[in-house]
């Protein structure tokens, strides 16, 4: 058991996390070491696999457990290939090796998969086990839809998924025991489950004992004599200090974008500041007119709130990466990433959202739309960072829709993202905002189109005329996701879909909605 008083120094150079029922204390580790590499090359845990190395397949899925604000244990899947090891600091890292009981009994999730013939080559299986384990730990009784949602990031090339889904259905339909007793429990077995690491009370104790009270600062000297740093501030003051101290630091929030760059191409003389633990940057505040979201709030956390007010935006978030990606990806990080097809930026701009940015003690507010001013350029001054994002709550008579067109429904990057909002008064269009991703080098509003809509009656003719003007707003390019012609045509057709939504039910307009009503 580590002594809490060992945290006396203002800076700490060792990360601490729970693995295999023990506290691991690792001082000054190579900050570019991913969780996956640590597990496979140092931790002797080769059950976790690498298949794509970019968070796109789920073979490397592991579970992080920590205590949420209410002191409840929270289990979250993450892609271990994406994230530097320091990101597990203060949490418990659970891998496929941890699920069996001490005497070799399979976890119910594992047993269900075995019985359903749900593995063929077996390479994706550990990741699938961990995604279902996290779902199991949530205590829910998920239906097929929820099971599929939990598995969207776990690809399998062999089975066609049917037996995997069946295994989960079988598992969750049964009145499952929360604790599986082991037969031959070892002396001083750490918990009633006979599982070293998934026992609640043990985990709590261990997590409590590694709560971080001082910022983490890891320094690693490379062979060329330069220094890489990984800094983990826990509050805004520390973050400001660090930003003032080091030149051109890389800000890592969820790390789903930058993580692979850091881990695959380690640089020399690099300072990475992980802002995911800065408490002022986390959480949401709801007022009468708006939702304000801390920039480092994850998309998983944001989802239920946004989905309540803007179901179409919620749908976009459900299709953003996979659960494991959304568990760490942040809303601020997605804006800061300046993707030309950012789903969240498209929706936020259509909703006329604003953002607060900060340098030192100076804060300013700007619209999300004004943030990006070119393909790879934004308006942040040196040392300035995104603090929060605010989106207005829906007003009476307002209509909002958002769409994402991809080759695959889940876990795919948009060829075209679109979001539209307006207020309809006496069947006339007001306050209209038409925004597209994938149509230009950065997410942009269609100003000609908006002008043609403003004040006009909500009719097919209006939509048709306004749609034609998209050709003045955009000159989309051809790339591996879509051709310019398709992009323009679909951009126009999505306006039509928006119009049809006022006359037809969703199941007459979108194949996935129809599928849910089929038979």
């Amino acid at each position, binding site marked *: 058991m580590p002594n809490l008083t060992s945290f006396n120094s203002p800076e700490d150079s060792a990360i601490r996390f729970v693995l295999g029922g023990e506290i691991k204390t690792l001082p000054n580790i190579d900050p570019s070491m991913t969780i996956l590499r640590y597990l496979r090359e140092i931790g002797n845990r080769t059950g976790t696999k690498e298949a794509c190395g970019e968070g*796109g397949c789920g073979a490397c899925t592991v579970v992080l457990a920590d205590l949420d604000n209410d002191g409840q244990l929270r289990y979250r899947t993450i892609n271990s290939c994406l994230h530097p090891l320091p990101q597990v600091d203060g949490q418990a890292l659970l891998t496929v090796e941890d699920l069996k009981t001490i005497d070799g009994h399979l976890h119910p999730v594992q047993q269900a998969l075995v019985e359903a013939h749900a593995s063929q080559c*077996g390479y994706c299986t550990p990741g699938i086990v961990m995604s279902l384990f996290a779902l199991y730990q949530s205590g829910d009784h998920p239906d097929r839809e929820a099971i*599929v949602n939990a598995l969207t990031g776990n690809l399998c090339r*062999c089975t*066609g998924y049917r037996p995997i889904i069946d295994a989960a259905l079988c598992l969750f339909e049964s009145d499952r025991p929360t604790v599986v007793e082991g037969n031959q429990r070892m002396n001083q077995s750490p918990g009633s489950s006979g599982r070293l690491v998934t026992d609640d009370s043990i985990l709590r104790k261990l997590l409590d004992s590694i709560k971080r009270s001082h910022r983490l600062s890891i320094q690693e000297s490379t062979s060329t004599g330069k220094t890489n740093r990984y800094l983990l501030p826990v509050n805004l003051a520390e973050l400001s200090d660090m930003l003032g101290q080091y030149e051109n630091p890389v800000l890592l929030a969820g790390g789903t974008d930058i993580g692979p760059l850091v881990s695959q191409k380690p640089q020399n003389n690099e300072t990475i500041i992980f802002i995911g633990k800065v408490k002022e940057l986390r959480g949401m505040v709801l007022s009468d007119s708006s939702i304000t979201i801390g920039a480092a709030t994850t998309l998983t956390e944001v989802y239920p709130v946004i989905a309540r007010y803007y179901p179409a935006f919620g749908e976009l978030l459900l299709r953003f990466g996979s659960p494991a990606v959304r568990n760490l990806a942040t809303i601020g990080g997605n804006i800061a990433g300046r993707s030309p097809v950012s789903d969240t930026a498209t929706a936020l701009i259509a909703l006329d959202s604003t953002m607060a940015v900060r340098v030192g003690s100076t804060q300013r507010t700007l619209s999300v739309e004004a943030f990006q001013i070119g393909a790879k350029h934004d308006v942040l001054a040196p040392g300035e960072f995104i603090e929060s994002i605010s989106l207005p709550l829906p007003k009476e008579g307002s209509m909002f829709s958002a769409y994402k067109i991809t080759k695959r429904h889940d876990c795919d990057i948009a060829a075209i993202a679109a979001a539209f909002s307006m207020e309809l008064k006496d069947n006339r269009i007001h306050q209209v905002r038409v925004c597209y991703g994938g149509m230009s080098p950065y997410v942009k509003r269609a100003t000609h189109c908006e002008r043609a809509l403003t004040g006009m009656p909500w009719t097919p003719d209006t939509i048709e005329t306004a749609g034609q003007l998209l050709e003045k707003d955009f000159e989309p390019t051809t790339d591996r996701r879509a051709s310019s012609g398709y992009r323009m045509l*679909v951009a126009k057709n999505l306006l039509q*879909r928006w119009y049809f939504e006022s006359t037809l039910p969703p199941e007459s307009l979108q194949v996935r909605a129809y599928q849910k009503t089929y038979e």
Partner: protein
Amino acid sequence: MHDSARLHVTGEADYVDDLPVPALTLYAAFGVSQYANARVTTLDLERVRQSPGVASVVTAHDIPGENLISFIQADEPVFASTHVECVGQPLFAVAAQSFQQARAAIDCARVEYEPLVSVLTVEQALADDSFILPSKRLSRGNATHALESATHHLEGQLQVGGQEHFYFESQVSLAIPNDNGGICIHSATQYPSHIQQAVARVLGLKRISDVTVMCRRIGGAFGGKETQSTLFACVAALLAAKTGQAVKCRLTRQEDMVMTGKRHDFIALYQVGFDDEGRIEGYRVELSSRCGMSADLSGFINDRAMLHSDNCYFLPHVTINSHRCKTNTVSNTAFRGFGAPQAIWVMEQIIDEIARYLGQDPLDIRKRNFYEPGRRSTTPYGMRVEDPLLHEIVSRLETDARYRERRAEIEDFNRHSPILKRGLALTPVKYGVAFTQTHLNQAGALVHLYIDGSVYLNHGGTEMGQGLYTKVAQVVAEELQIDMGRITISAADTSKVPNASATAASVGSDLNGKAAQAAARTIKLRLVEFAAKHFNIRPEEVVFSNNRVSIGSQQISFQELVALAYHERISLSATGFYRTPEIEFDRSKFTGRPFLYFSYGAAVSEVAIDTLTGENTLLKVDILHDCGRSLNPAIDRGQIEGAFLQGAGWLTMEELIWNDAGVLQTNTSSSYKIPACRDCPVHFNVELLETTPNRKDTVFSSKAVGEPPFMLAISVFQAIKDAIAAAGNRCRRPQLDAPATPERILNAIQDIHST
């Protein structure tokens, strides 16, 4: 249940990258061509050698034996030296102390190129007469005359895309040098003996037997580890031989996608003549495929495409011309179906065209063209279709899946649905089982019995998830009448069973099951003879059943009998061998019996498409598939479902895109999309035609199942086409190439509206 299921779910199943490595193991990385076709003018590796952690750097000049990894044509070197022929072709390799150091070192190379004009596509290759192998023709009757005299005539061009294997485990080999100058290689490969031979040749070893190649399990292969693993094993071996240290060579996903071959994309130009009933009278097709920069298996793949151009349909007068295009892209290779999916896809488009031209249901046209036992039963290559299974499967499925009723319901739906359209299709498959290279149809096995009655089983097949090891163990357990738990399943190992063929062509269990059965029978026969003599009764009175042996009126346990036999000095080890009977194929004339039998199946798929965006979804699938008398229905069902969804991916969302410089643009999981969990249809009914034993003498009358169901996914494509047709006024036939991405679907809808 898969024999490794428990190991899979606990993460305890070891793949090559999980094996403990010897001390001082080095890690390999490749320096590859950045150009599609170029002369290499400078290859300066000085800074690579100086890079931290680097132990060895090898190029074509460092190969002690032959700089060659291909056997069929001598056209694929380990390393290019002066001329590179595709992006991703290896120029050199590095072994360093870590994976990261090896990759960092690669970036230090100074390579200069003098670019040459490259040929990237089938169209360009045809225009330039760029072929990797001579074109071939399969002809029967007089297609020209039949086309001229037919009442109706259609012609057109069709394109079907390639496919990335996307096996989860990327290519990996671990080479460990021996003290005798030989080498031991753990490789994720479907073809250990190919690697064994190639490594011996590259290293210039006098004896193939000095190389041992082992593989316990592969994390997915699908044809992509038949020949494609060879390069990585050879380079690991070369670096291990140079340094005297173990070397691991494992690719990143992106490296794997860039450096390894894929399914061939095809262009087909066809002409078809038919009568008022839609019966085909004459058919001519030019099948041209993108083979890439070397021959690899392209000859046999295109042969199989020719042999499956008929699918289930009798073609009285037919000419099939096959062109094997050489392009400056990675050398395309085996992939589940081995050329048959593309050819069958082409034929199914033609049936669809005929049906829409005549205004009839495509299913009626399909049925009218089926092979009929008796009169219309001979394939273009002269082998007869003897089973009546096609008719049985299709009529049963038509009824069970309510094809006709649903057709009517869908038409009604489509009349009232302005934006969404549904489509329905039933497509059949007939798949020829055997390697068309006749000599590969052989297998060996090795069975040991130990004094406690346990069994050690080895055979030449590799386990890539398909459940082969489970099936073969079942065969041995059944033969010896013992529990599966007594059998130790072991890794494919060139030192245990020599000269094994690739585990491919769906015949893994047909071949290895028979070989293991033969070995088990040999031992069993010895035990019977021994028991008869020992207990002084007739051999017929020795009966094995359920872990026990009846010897006349008394019973002893299997274990007791084995122990007794050991004491009486009876050999308890045997090899088994099998060669497929009856097959003979004249490759020059394209006639004979290339296959022992056919596997059949059919699928009904229903889809919905969005006419505003081309988005689509698979609503329902019903499959009836022939596995003979299934060795393991759960495993066979898994093969059918997995193959189906993989096929659906090929024909819908999986799109390979190269840029004008020949650089693959879809080279990551974020840009190349294979089906995900939600793409599995909610209504997915799979039934095996279980009551029908194989008419040929196969292992327990089972049938091959690995590849045939892949082609059932063509029903998804035809259903999409059906839905597109419903978006138009039925005057124009939808033109849709594969894969049917949302973009192609929307274009096809625009196209039928544009008149």
